[in-house]
């Protein structure tokens, strides 16, 4: 639990942002150690993007305060701006311009003279595998290429802190892996990354620490290991042959696992958490015991699986309400 608090990239306390009747950010506290990847995990509408926009000086908070490398995001916004970059959820490049023009434009705005800006743009396009697409308008790029030119724009002057707002949402698996690799390389060179995501496995793979946020507040914080242990080591998914046996199966399962059982929309399906204090081998043991008890009670199970907790289940565990996610999201870790 002991992050080095003497060297913080971000320190936010009691941040509030209200839009009309909605409290998008509602008392958010955050401490992000420098030199790490910090994951902010939450469903659509949890306040992730609003929080990032406040920290990146795009929105003024209605309450609380935040500093980035010791500079106040409202009073010393320019000092913050000179040290951070943002790659937003939607392309933060000009889609009407070519990749080359975008990077030269940004280089000029960051103070490079024209020849230097052109050289730098060329190097970045090369490093991001976009040399062939340099003279094409960004609107004709694939999703993965767009994301790459966006990140290239963000590191034109290597920032001390890089905000990545849902960098892989909507990307195909290969492009997602490319973005993950890029993030790892950028962090290895000393840039702190704050990453927002809806995917537990993305936060799990990349982040050194994770804050889970819901309704504008941090509801859990820690290393991925700590977080998973608090939620449980796994999740059991069951499909029964006979739907009339479901109430009985629920009783048996909740007794065997000692945790609440969720009735899925599918009338023969059930989902339950296996806590086992985060220990995966003990979780497997508990799950097989539960399966044996079901057989003993005469309940026929057609399909059985034990997987990592999904974001939905993390939410269910932490908030007692399911993550209300948009229709555009892909399936979670299908285990």
């Amino acid at each position, binding site marked *: 639990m002991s992050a080095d608090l003497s060297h913080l990239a971000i320190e936010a306390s009691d941040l509030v942002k209200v839009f009309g009747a909605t409290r998008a950010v509602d008392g958010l506290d955050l401490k992000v150690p420098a030199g790490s990847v910090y994951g902010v995990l939450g469903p659509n509408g949890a306040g992730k993007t609003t929080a990032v*926009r406040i920290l990146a*000086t*795009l929105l*003024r908070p209605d309450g609380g305060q935040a500093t980035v490398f010791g500079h106040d995001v409202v009073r010393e916004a*320019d000092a913050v*701006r*000179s040290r*951070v*970059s*943002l790659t*937003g*959820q*939607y*392309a*933060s*490049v*000009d*889609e*009407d*311009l070519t990749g080359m023009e975008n990077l030269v*434009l*940004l280089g*000029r*705005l*960051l*103070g*490079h*003279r024209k020849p*230097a800006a052109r050289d*730098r743009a060329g*190097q*970045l396009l*090369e*490093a*991001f*595998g*976009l040399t*062939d697409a340099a003279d094409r*308008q960004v609107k004709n790029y*694939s999703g*993965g290429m767009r994301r*790459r030119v966006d990140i290239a*724009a*963000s*590191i034109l*002057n*290597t920032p*001390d802190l890089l905000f990545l707002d849902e960098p892989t949402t909507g990307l*195909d*698996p*290969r492009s997602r892996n*490319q973005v993950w*690799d*890029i993030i790892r*390389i*950028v962090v*290895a*060179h*000393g*840039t702190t990354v704050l990453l927002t995501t809806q995917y537990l496995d993305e936060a799990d793979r990349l982040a050194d620490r994770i804050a889970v946020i819901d309704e504008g507040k941090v509801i859990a914080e820690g290393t991925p290991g700590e977080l998973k242990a608090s939620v449980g080591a796994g999740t059991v998914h069951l499909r029964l042959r006979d739907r009339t046996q479901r109430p009985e199966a629920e009783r048996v399962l909740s007794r065997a696992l000692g945790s609440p059982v969720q009735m899925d929309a599918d009338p023969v399906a059930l989902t339950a958490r296996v806590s086992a204090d985060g220990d995966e081998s003990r979780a497997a043991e508990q799950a097989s015991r539960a399966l044996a008890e079901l057989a003993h009670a005469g309940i026929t199970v057609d399909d059985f699986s034990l997987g990592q907790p999904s974001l939905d289940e993390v939410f269910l565990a932490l908030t007692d309400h399911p993550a209300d996610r948009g229709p555009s999201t892909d399936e979670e870790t299908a285990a």
Partner: protein
Amino acid sequence: MSTATETRAESATPYSPAAETLGTVLAPGQRPARPSPLSASITFGWRAVLKIKHVPEQLFDVTAFPIIMVLMFTYLFGGALADSTRDYLQYLLPGIMVTSVVMITMYTGVGVNTDIEKGVFDRFRTLPIWRPAALVGAIFGDVLRYILASTTIILVGLVLGFRPQGGVFGVLAGVGLLVVFSFAFSWIWTMFGLLLRSEKSVMGMSMLILFPLTFLSNVFVQPVTMPGWLQAFVEVNPITHLVAAVRSLMAGQPAVGEIFWTLVAGALIVAVFGTVTMRLYNRK
């Protein structure tokens, strides 16, 4: 889980990020000095020019629209008001040039409104640069459109028989004053572009302001022919002073008072609407 569904032809060998190549472009701590306000604004102006280069059709409204305006009003009113279209053109042309260019300024608001909704403005607003640069640059780009529209009208006018007494210098001075005023006037539209929700509402609001402002002036007829209450409005309308000033310059007899009031009006518009625009921009 198959990744072979990628149908877009990116390149023969898929990109894979390499630590060595990416490492060479990562240089923490190296930052050039920030650009001056003027340099940043000119860079944003260059962005506007690049957009025109990629979508040249957007120049249609600054070429076709002014030509239609000149032809329409010259032949519509010329016979009735001055017995001859050629005589009327000497009076009308500077005014119709002002009307067309001032009307074109509203596209500044439409442009800001659509542009600001896109993610790229998030990036601009996180840059450590002079805050108004993005908007000043956008208006620089629009100034090119104003010059193009003015040139088109002058050329059409010359073909139809417009013979300005002020000569080349007088015409250039008139166009120059109009462009300076339009630059100032554009800040009204940046404000509406930031204030209103949609492109349509920006257009609607622009029409509501532009029609009375351009028609209730001395563009088409002498104000002495109007009832007293209307003359009172026409007298304070900055467009009236602008038209009088441009007319006087093109006629080779500069009316210093009218030029002065035009510049004062322009400065006031920038002071008021520029300030409101930047407040809205910083809050957005």
